[in-house]
C-alpha cells in the first residue's frame, strides 16, 4: 500500500485549516470535499482537481469541525462559538442551526444511517445526539463522574469531550476527552458502557474501523495512536512514530491502513498488518489538523483518496492504493 501526492492547494483558506471531511457522492454528483478554517468559513471543493465550489460563511468564530451526512446531501459545521450549522450541501440553504451552551460543541459526526448527529459536548462531559429529521436533541450521553455529582466540582472540566466516533453498525458510540480516557456508550439504550484507558493526554480524534466494528483507533497528544478493542475495553496496540501530538486519525475504507496527521507536520500511513508506519508524507509545512479517506461509493470512483489539511492553509490530496 502506498500514498502518492495528487494535488495540493496552497492558501485554500485565509487562515489555518482545522477540519476536513468528504461529502459522499449523490446520484447527481461525485464526492465533494468540505473544509473548515479559522477564517470562519467553510469551503466546498470538487474532488481530484480541488476546484473551489463554494464558500459558506455564517460562523462568528473559527470552524472546529465539519461533518457530512452519509447520503451526501446534508452537512454540518461547528465553530468555537458553539453553533452548529446544518446546511444543504448543494444549495447552501441552512437547514438548522443548533445552538449549544458555549464550550459544549466540539467534533461532529453523523451516524452511519444518517438519523442522528453526534456532537462531542466539550465541557458538558457528554455527547449530544440530535435527530436529523426534527433537529431536536434526543439524548445526552454523559460520562459518569467518578464520585457522585457535585455541581461546582472542577473535575468536570477535566472531562472535556473533544472527539466522537460511531461504530459502523451505529450501535456504539465512543468519545475521547482531554484527560486521555475514552468512553464507550450503547446508543440504543443510551447507556455508558465503559472507559478505555491508556492515553494520558487529550484525545483529539477517534475512528472505528469500517471493516471490524470492534476496532477503535484513537489519536492523542501523547504522540501515540492506540488501537482498542472497543467492546472488550482493552488496549490492543499502541503505535508510536510521530514526534509530536497526533491530531487526527482515519481508517481506510478497506480497513487495512490508518492515516494520521500530526503536529510534527507529517501525515503517516500505518499498515495494520505490519503495525508500523509505512510511509511519511512531509509535504505540509505546518501541523496537520485533519486527514480523511474518501468513503467508497459513487459511480465514477476509481481509486482510494486521502486528503489532509494543515495550519499552513493548504489542502493536499493523495492517491491511496
Amino acid at each position, binding site marked *: 500500500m502506498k500514498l502518492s501526492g495528487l494535488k495540493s492547494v496552497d492558501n485554500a483558506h485565509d*487562515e*489555518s485549516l*482545522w477540519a476536513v471531511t468528504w461529502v459522499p457522492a449523490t446520484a447527481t454528483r461525485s464526492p465533494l470535499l468540505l473544509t473548515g478554517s*479559522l477564517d470562519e468559513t467553510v469551503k466546498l471543493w470538487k474532488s481530484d482537481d480541488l476546484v473551489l465550489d463554494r464558500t459558506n460563511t455564517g460562523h*462568528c*468564530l*473559527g470552524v*472546529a469541525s465539519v461533518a457530512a451526512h452519509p447520503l451526501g446531501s446534508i452537512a454540518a459545521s461547528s465553530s*468555537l*462559538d*458553539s453553533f452548529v450549522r446544518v446546511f444543504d450541501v448543494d444549495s447552501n440553504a441552512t437547514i438548522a442551526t443548533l445552538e449549544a*451552551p*458555549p*464550550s*459544549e460543541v*466540539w467534533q461532529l459526526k453523523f451516524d452511519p444511517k444518517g438519523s442522528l448527529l453526534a456532537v462531542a459536548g*466539550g*465541557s*458538558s462531559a457528554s455527547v449530544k445526539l440530535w435527530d436529523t429529521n426534527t433537529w431536536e436533541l434526543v439524548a445526552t450521553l454523559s460520562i459518569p463522574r467518578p464520585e457522585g455529582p457535585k*455541581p*461546582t466540582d*472542577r473535575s*468536570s*472540566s*477535566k472531562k*472535556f469531550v*473533544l472527539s466522537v466516533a460511531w461504530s459502523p453498525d451505529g450501535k456504539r458510540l465512543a468519545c475521547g476527552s*482531554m484527560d486521555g480516557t475514552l468512553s464507550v456508550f450503547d446508543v440504543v439504550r443510551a447507556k455508558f458502557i465503559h472507559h478505555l484507558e491508556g492515553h494520558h493526554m*487529550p484525545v483529539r480524534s477517534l475512528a472505528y474501523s469500517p471493516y471490524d466494528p470492534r476496532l477503535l483507533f484513537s489519536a492523542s*497528544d501523547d504522540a501515540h495512536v492506540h488501537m482498542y478493542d472497543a467492546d472488550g475495553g482493552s488496549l490492543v496496540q499502541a503505535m508510536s512514530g510521530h514526534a*509530536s*501530538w497526533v491530531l487526527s486519525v482515519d481508517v481506510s475504507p478497506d480497513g487495512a491502513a490508518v492515516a494520521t496527521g500530526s*503536529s510534527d507536520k507529517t501525515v503517516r500511513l500505518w499498515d495494520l498488518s505490519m503495525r508500523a508506519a509505512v510511509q511519511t508524507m512531509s509535504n505540509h509545512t*505546518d*501541523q496537520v489538523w485533519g486527514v480523511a479517506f474518501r468513503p467508497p461509493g459513487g459511480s465514477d470512483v476509481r481509486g482510494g483518496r486521502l486528503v489532509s489539511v494543515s*495550519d499552513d492553509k493548504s489542502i493536499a490530496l493523495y492517491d491511496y492504493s
Partner: protein
Amino acid sequence: MQESLDAQPDDASLHFDMGVFLWDKGGEAKEPKEKAAEHFVISAKLNPKNGDAFKFLGHYYGCVARDTQRAIKCYQRAITLNPDDSDSGEALCDLLDEGGKESLEVAVCHEASERSPRAFWAFRRLGYLQVHRKKWTDAVQSLQHAIRGYPTCADLWEALGLAYQRLGRFTAALKSYGRAIELDHSLVFALVESGNISLTLAASKKGVDHFRLALEISPCCVSAHYGLAFGLLGFAKECINRGAYQWGASLLEEASEVARASAYVVKNISSIWKLHADIQLAYARCYPWNAEVQVLVSDKEAFKASILSWRKTCLLAARCARFSYQRALHLAPWQPNIYADIAVTSDLITSLENNYKQDSNARKLSEKMSMGALLLEGDNYEFWVALGYLSGHNALKQHALIRGLQLNVSLAIAWGYLGKLYRKEGEKILARQVFDRARSIDPGLALPWASMSAECHSRELAPVEAFESCLRAVQIMPLAEFQIGLTKLALRTGDLSSSQVYGAIKQAVQRSPQYPESHNLNGLVFEARKDYLSAAASYRFARHAIDISSQNFPNTQIRDVSINLARSLSKAGSAVDALQECEHLKKEGALDIEGLQVYAFSLWQHGENDLALSVARSLAASLSSMEKTSVATSICFICRLLYYICGLDAVTNNIVKMPKELFQSSEVSFVLSAIHALNGHNHLGSVVSSSRSFLTSHEEITRMHFLIALGKLVKNGSECCLGIQSGVAHLRKALHMYPSSNLMRNLLGYLLLSCKELNSCHLAVRCCKLDPPDLSNQEDLKSASDIHGAGSVSCYAIGNSNPKLTFPTCTKQCRTNPDSIRYLQKCLHQNPWNHNARYLLVLNFLQKAREEKFPHHLCVTINRLIFLALSNELHYKIEVSYQYQQFQLLLCASEISLQCGNRSTCITYAKKAAAIVLPDDYLFFAHLLLCRAHAMKGDLLNLQEEYTRCLELRTDCHIGWICLKLVESQYQLQINSNAIDLNFERSVKKGGNLWKMWMAVYNLVRGLISLQNRDLLSAEELMAQACSLADSESCLHLCHGAICMELGRQCHGSLFLSRAANSLSKVHEHSMIPLPLARILLAQAEGSLGSKEKWATNLRLEWYSWPPEQRPAELSFLIHLVARQLKAGSNSQSTVVFSTSPRRWVLQAIHINPSSMRYWRVLLKLLE
C-alpha cells in the same frame, strides 16, 4: 620493587605500591591491570583497612572485568573505610545510577555524608538526588554543604537556586542563580528561571534582560522566548497604565514579534498562542492615533484616511488576537479563561467595527463565549464579572454580577460594574451605595471615582471635588472616557489650563480620534493655554470628525465647534478666517450670542467698524431674550466695542439709554465702573452704584475698590497730574474693610510712593506685604517687591542698620525690611528676566554705595549690574517708563564713574543720558551731573555752559535746584544770582504739603554757603529759619547749635549760648539714634552757662553716642575731666565706666592721639 616484594611478601603496602605502579604503567592494556588487581587483592587481604586498595579493585571490576556487583562491593568497602573518598563515591554512585538503584544511591550518599562532614561528593550527589525527588528543603541543606566543598561549581548553585525557587524564596533563588551565571555564562536554565522569578516579582524590565541574555546563548529556547514576550507585555502594560501609549505600542510590537516567532516554532502550545493573543489585544487597545497636524488640518480626506488606518490597525490587531485565542482554544478547549478572552476580544472587535450600531449577533457572541468560560468553571467569580460586563441584557448583567459577588463579596470591580448598571437604569441611590462599597473595598479602582464625579449633582459635590475624583480615576486608569469627562469637569472648575487636563485630553485624542468631542475639548484646552493656532487646528479636526462620522450629531454640537473655531481664529489674530467661519455660520442661521460676539469682534479686527457695529446692534436687539449670564457678557462686549469704535461719549450715551435691568451682574458692573472712571462727568453715577450691588465675592469687591481708586485718580486729578491723594484716601478706607487684599495693598503702596508726602515712602513699604518671591502675583499693577525696592531707594537712610559711616536721622526708619538688597537679589535670581528688579537693585546698590562713600568693590558690582541692565533690549522700547529707566541707569553709571574719578566716562554716560528724549524735568539732572563732572575737571568753560543749560531746562524737583545752588556757590558761578532762588520758590509753590521741609533744607544750604563765606550771623539766621520750618529735623538743630556755639565763642554773648543749648537739646528729642558731637556741644554750652552737673551728664552721654572704635581722643580727654570731678565730689551715682582713674582716661586719649601736646601736659600734671 619486585625484589623487595619477594623479600617481604607479607607487606601490604608493598603490594599496594606494586599494584598502583602496574595500574598506572599498564595504560589501556588489560593484562597489567589484571596483575595489578592481584596485588591489590593481596594487599587488601593483608591490610583490610586500606581503602585505596578497594578503590582500585573497584575500578578494576568496574572498568576492566565488568563485574558490577563486585565493583559495587569494593567501592562500598572503600567508602566505609574512607568516606571522603570522592573517586570511589562518584564511581559507586554512577554504577548504582546505571543500575537504576536510586534509593540505594541515596542511602549510600546519606551514610557517607553522615559519617564525614568532608564527604562533599556525597552532599553533592545527595543534593542533586533530592532535587530530582523534589525534596526541596533537604536539598537546600545538602547543596549548601556541598557548595562549601565545591564553591565554584555552577551546577550546584543552579540546583540550589532551583530548590530555593520551589520553596518560594525568590530573592535567595535569584542570588543563587546569579552566582551560577557568574561562574558559567552559558547557563540558560538559570537565566530563564531568573527571568521567570523577576516576572513573578513584577520586575518586568529585569526579567526581559535575563531572557535576552538567555536568548543570546540559546536562540531557540522557547521558554526564554515566551518569557521575553511575557516580560515585554508586562512592561508595556506598565507603560500603558501610565498613559505612554506610543511606548507601550512599540514594546508590544517587539513582544508580538517574539511571541509570533516562538508560536510558529512550537505550534501546539496553547499558552504561547494565548500570550500572542494577549499581546495583540493589548496592542489593539493601546495603539495611539498619531497625526501630523499640519497635513491633516486642511484636508478632510486625509484626516479620514488617517482615522481609518488607525482604526484598521487596531482592528487588525484585535482580529489577530482573536485568531490566536482561537488557536489556543482549539488546542486546549478545556481552558475556561480562553473563552473569556475571546469574549472580551469579540467585544472589542465589535466596538471597533461599528461604533454606534450595536450588532446584536456580535453582542451575543461575546456573551456566549463568556458563558462558555462559566460552564467550564462555574465557581470562578471573575468569569461572572466578565459575563456581567459583556452581556447586553441588563437582567443577565445584574444576575452575573451578583453571582460573582456571592462567590467573592469583596470584589470591588463587580460592585463597580453593578453600580454602573444601576446608574444606567436610573437607580441612583442604589448605584451610589454600590459605588461607595466598591470604593471602600478598593480605593485603587478607577470606576467608582469616575462615578463620583459623574454624580456631582446628586451628591451635592462641589465641582472641584468632582474634578478631583475624576482626576483620580484618570490617574488610576487612563481611559479616554474618563479623560474626556475630566476635561469637561475642568471646563466647569476652570482648570482647563492645568497640565493634568492637558495630558489627559492629549491621551484621549490618541485613543479616540474619531470622537469630535475629544478634539473639541482638546481645542478648548489649547485655548485655555493661549495656544490659539493649535486650538483652531483641533476644532478643525473636530469638524472633520463630525463630517466623516456616519452618526448624526445634534446641530448644536456642530455649531458649538464652529463657534469655537471662529473664536480661536480671531484670538489667534487671523480675522479673515474667523470672518469666513462666522459668515458661514450666519448663512446657516446658526449664529448665537457668542457667535455674534465673535463675528463683531472679527469685523472690528478686520477694520470693518460699521459692520461690526451693526452686528453689535443685532446682538443688543436680542438682549431681552437671553439668559442672565449671557446678557452680562453681551453687554460687556457691546460696551467695550462701542468704546473702541466710537469713543467714550457714545458709550456713555448708550449706557444711559439702556434699561437698568440689564446691568444686574458683576461683570457689567466692572465695565460700567471703568467707563464711569474715564468719563469726567457723573452721568453714570446712579447706574454704576446700582450695578455694584451685584458684586458678591470678596475677590470681586476688592477688585472693584481697586478700580474705584484708579477712577478717583483720574477724576480728581488735574490735566497733568493724577489725584493721588483721593485714591490713597479711598484705598485706606477700603483696606480697613478688606485688610487681606494684596491687590489693594500694592496699589496703595504704589500710590504712596508716587505721592509727594513726607514719609509716604515708609508708609508704602509698610503697607505692602512681601510674599516669598515665588508667590508674588504677576498680574498686579506693581508687585510688592517693586514697591519695597523703590521704597527703600526713596529713603536715604534705609539699608544702614549699623551706623558706622553715617548717622541717619530719619525718624521714620523702616525696620521691617532692612534688607531689600538681598530680597531684590532673590527676585532676580528667581526671574533673571525681571528687569524691574535689576533696575531697583542697581538703585539700591547706588544708595548703599553712597552711604558707604563709594567703596571700590561696590562700584565694580554696580558697574556690572548697570552694564547688564543697559544691554537689555527693553530699553529700545519707546515707552516713557523704559526710557526713564535707561536714563536713570546711565546717570547711575555716570555717577559711579565720577566717584571713581573716571571723568571722561562719566561725561560720556551723562551725555548719553542727556540725549534721551525725556521731559526737561528729568534731563536737568543729566546736565547737573555734567556740571559736576566738568567742575571736577576744572573745565570752567563747559561748566558754565552746562550750568546755563540747567537753568534753561528747569525742573520741578527741589533737590535739583539745591544741588545746582551748591555747585554754583562752590565754583562761584553767579551769573544770575537770583535765578535759582526764584526757580526754587516756584517749584516749592507747586510742591504741596512738603514745601516747609524743602524750604528748611534750602535755608540750610544757604546757611552753609554763608558759613563758607564766614558770615556766621546770617548763617545763624538762616539756620534758625530752617529750624522753625522743620522743627523735627535733628540735623538742622545740630547745625544751628554748632553755629550758635561758634558765635558764642566769638564773644557774642550768652544769648547765643542759650540758643545753642536750646537747639542742641532738641537734637536729642528728635533723633532716634544719638548723634555724636551734639552732646559734647551741649555740655560745653551748659558748662559755659554755669551748670557743672549738666556738663558732666552730657559728656557722659556723649560717650555712648559714639561707636566704640570711633571715639575720638578728645572725648576720652574730656571724660578725664568728668572723672576728676567725680573723684573730687565722690559722687554716688558713678558708673563702672567712669569710675576708672582720670589718669587712665588721659592715657587712653594719648594712646589714640599721641601728637597732642595738651594731653601730655595734663598727664605730667596728673603724675605730679
